[in-house]
């Protein structure tokens, strides 16, 4: 009997010392969804510092996921299946066109500018000099939903009178790096990459054929249903991020995360609408 009383006393005393007031935010976790503009492993590596930063800053556990493709990404973000998302400008425009507005948190500022460009590239030793020379040539695109590896360059080609059907062939190679390497390896005569990738491969023999108009940078959005406290907390965390290591890890040259507005993407939206009308 005494033994039983002692045992019960011990259990009670242990239960007494267990924490009984755990904050709700500590218990939650939110997902950070990244569109697959780079190989998934690289993206995980690149966003690991930011994920860590946001978790620490917001006290919310952030889980980083990579979407299978741009379409899935748009769907997931549009359908509010993810809490936080990093989106390319075109994906954002397409997503808002289909699913309506989301909370814009911040956009990238690269070397002091929140705008970026894409480049239509070819090889250094190529005989192609202008966009018009691309007639009958092969062309590499990134993803059909990619801003700088498809939509804007396609718009530029059309503007130059080069429609897809007068190309000898064109392929979607998923990533900007694949486009750059596909051109360098001679599998494609030209391709479209974003500025960052162009500079990455320029030394290895890549040549710029034409530059796209400047488009507002990548943007962080949240689902429309996310509590405003969390939205603000996240926005605040992003806008106050000053750790260069975390910033440059996202992308080389990122100097800060700056406020974003839907109107920042109007020019892109016009291009996309133009393309849709053309098709």
């Amino acid at each position, binding site marked *: 009997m005494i033994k039983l009383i002692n045992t019960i006393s011990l259990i009670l005393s242990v239960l007494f010392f267990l924490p009984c007031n755990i904050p709700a935010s500590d218990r939650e976790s939110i997902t950070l969804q990244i569109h697959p503009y780079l190989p998934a*492993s690289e993206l995980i590596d690149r966003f690991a510092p930011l994920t860590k930063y946001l978790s620490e800053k917001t006290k919310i556990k952030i889980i980083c996921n990579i979407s299978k493709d741009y379409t899935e990404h748009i769907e997931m973000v549009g359908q509010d299946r993810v809490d936080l998302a990093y989106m390319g400008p075109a994906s954002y425009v397409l997503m808002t066109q289909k699913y309506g507005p989301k909370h814009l948190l911040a956009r990238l500022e690269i070397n002091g500018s929140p705008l970026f460009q894409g480049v239509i590239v070819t090889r250094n030793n190529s005989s192609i000099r202008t966009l018009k020379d691309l007639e009958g040539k092969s062309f590499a695109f990134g993803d059909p939903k990619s801003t700088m590896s498809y939509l804007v360059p396609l718009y530029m080609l059309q503007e130059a009178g080069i429609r897809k059907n007068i190309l000898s062939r064109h392929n979607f190679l998923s990533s900007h790096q694949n486009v750059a390497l596909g051109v360098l390896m001679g599998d494609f005569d030209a391709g479209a990459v974003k500025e960052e990738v162009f500079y990455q491969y320029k030394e290895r*023999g890549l040549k710029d054929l034409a530059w796209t108009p400047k488009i507002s940078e990548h943007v962080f959005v949240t689902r429309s249903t996310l509590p405003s406290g969390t939205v603000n907390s996240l926005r605040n965390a992003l806008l106050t991020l000053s750790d260069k290591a975390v910033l440059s890890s996202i992308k080389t040259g990122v100097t800060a995360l700056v406020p974003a507005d839907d109107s920042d993407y109007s020019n892109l939206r016009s291009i996309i609408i133009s393309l849709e009308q053309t098709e």
Partner: protein
Amino acid sequence: MMKKILHLKYKRFILTFISILLVFLAFIISIIASQHHEMLEEIESDAQREIELIGSFAQEALLMNDYAGVEQFLNKWAREHEEILSLTATAPNDFILVQFNRPKEARPSLNLIHHVRYGGRDLLLLEMIRDLSPAQKSMIKLSVPLILSSVFLTIIIGTLLWYAMRKLALTPMEREISIREQAERKFRLLLESAPDALIYADKNGKIVMMNAQTELLFGYNRNELEGKDIEILMPARFRDKHKEFREKFLLGPAARPMGLHHELYAITKKGREFPADISLSPIETEEGLFILSAVRDMTERKLAEEKIKRSYNFQTAISSILSKSLSPVDLDTQLQSILDTILAIPGLSVESMGCIYLAKDNDSTLMMKAQRGLPDTIISGCRNIPFSHCLCGEAAETRRIIFASCEDSRHMVHPDYGKEFLHSHYCVPIVSGGKTLGVINLVVKKDHKRSTDEEDLLTSVANTLAGIIEHNRTDVERQHLQTQLAQVEKLSALGRFTANVAHEIRTPLTLIGGFSRRLDKHIPGGTKDKEYSEIIINEVNRLENILKNVLTYSRESSLNMEKHNLREIITSSLKPYQEKYRAQSIRADLKLTEIPDLILDRDQIIEVINNILSNAFDAMPDGGSLTLTNESMTVHGKDYVIVHFTDTGQGMTEEQIQMIFEPFYSTKLIGHGTGLGLPISKKIMEDHGGFITVDTELKKGSTFSLYFPLQKDSNPSKQRT
């Protein structure tokens, strides 16, 4: 201890044993090396599979245009695999997709290349360099203990085998070898102590062993002979035959002398051939049949035998010569017979050729008295040889035996002996009492070897011959002296008688002559009486002349010796004859050179000259020539002035020559000579210390030579003879 054994006893055996162990060790090491090699091949194969696997992945990714994925994968793969030193992926357009280099130097390395293709299209070229050093190190780690254990095992096995072998085989073998060595030492001792050259050869005729005597006899050292054919020790002409004999000997080997009834010869290293006595002894051993040959040099014995034989032959010859000397025949016949005996001496002459010369009295000339087998050219060409002339003359002059070939430069007469008849000469002087009596000339073989021994024997023959000649000459001399004595006695009686008769006749003859000349004056010329009267006067004159000659020859006369010019005497003596000679078509040719003044009796010499001139006139009834020459010559150490009167008249026979100096011998018609001219001339010349010689040839003419002694600075004097 082991080292000592190694060096002294079983050197070859141990070396073989060690060699086998080393081969065993090498075999094990080669197996390890082979394993090593197989492992390396396996590694290479794995590496090839790896690059193919990488290629397979790259192919798939490239087909999906996942270039970045390929680049990332390859870089990651290379980075994470330490053994990859370098990895390069090159696109068909030479674009280098991946270039990974690990900053590390490693050798050995493995280069791998793989072409990534799809549907016949090159997609990518993969080049990889793999570091093999870790694999090598691990293999060495594995091999070293294996090799060390193999070495250790080899040493253990070797040592065990060595001790087992030593106990079971080497020690008994050592004992056996020791016994054999002792036996061999004894055999060698026996071999070396033998007085003969002993040669131990196998059944194939290869020289196996020999003693020091063999080295001494043949002049070879052991190393030069061991392993050589036994035929090296015999003259080349016997070698082939000897091989046949050797094979026959092996059919029935037995101890026996070699070459029965044959002269055996051996040859030294320097090529000296020598007669040999050889005995053979077959020796049966475990290693087969061997033949021990004992060789003895028979040169000395052969020489001794030859010497005895030659001595015997010469003694026999001398005995025969002495026996022949007793035969009652003249010297020439005896000499011919003796020459035949000399030529019959075995081994001396060639085809019985030779001759004997005798020296002429008072004349240094050799005259051939006997010959055998000589060609006619020699007989005529060498009939008379002056001393010092040619080889025979040299032998006569020097009184030494001359041995020379027919081609010797001293041979002044080289008559033809026939084609290619090469020979040598022995010219043996026949000497007695320091005077050369003659010379024996023998023709011997070209390669005949002169020897002191033979020359001694020839000298003995010559001495024997000298004795015979002296004996003969003494006999002749004695006979001649007896004849001369009889002659002297006869002449003495005749002289006395003639002197008396002459004395008795001279007075009435003088009266007859005186009165006849007186009466002749009163007889008128042209009458018969006048003719008769003149005949009487002439005959009386002739009688007076004869009487004068007889008195001159038979009586002692005194010489009125004074210094005169002989040339003037001869010239003046010739003058009265010139008319006479011309009438008979005789040409007098005076070729006298300057003659020193001589001491002589002018009248007497004029008489001598007159006699010779008169005889020359008579000797050339059909004309001819008389040549007068002079010369100076030393004969037997005495200087003479010689005047030669050479006519081309009838000449004389040998018999006439023998008689011309005899008194009252005349070839002239009776009434035309007294037969006292030449005897008187000879007497006059001898009274002057000179002499007269005649050399004649029938039908060709005669030469009278007057020898006047050359007296230097002597005062003229009267002397009686």
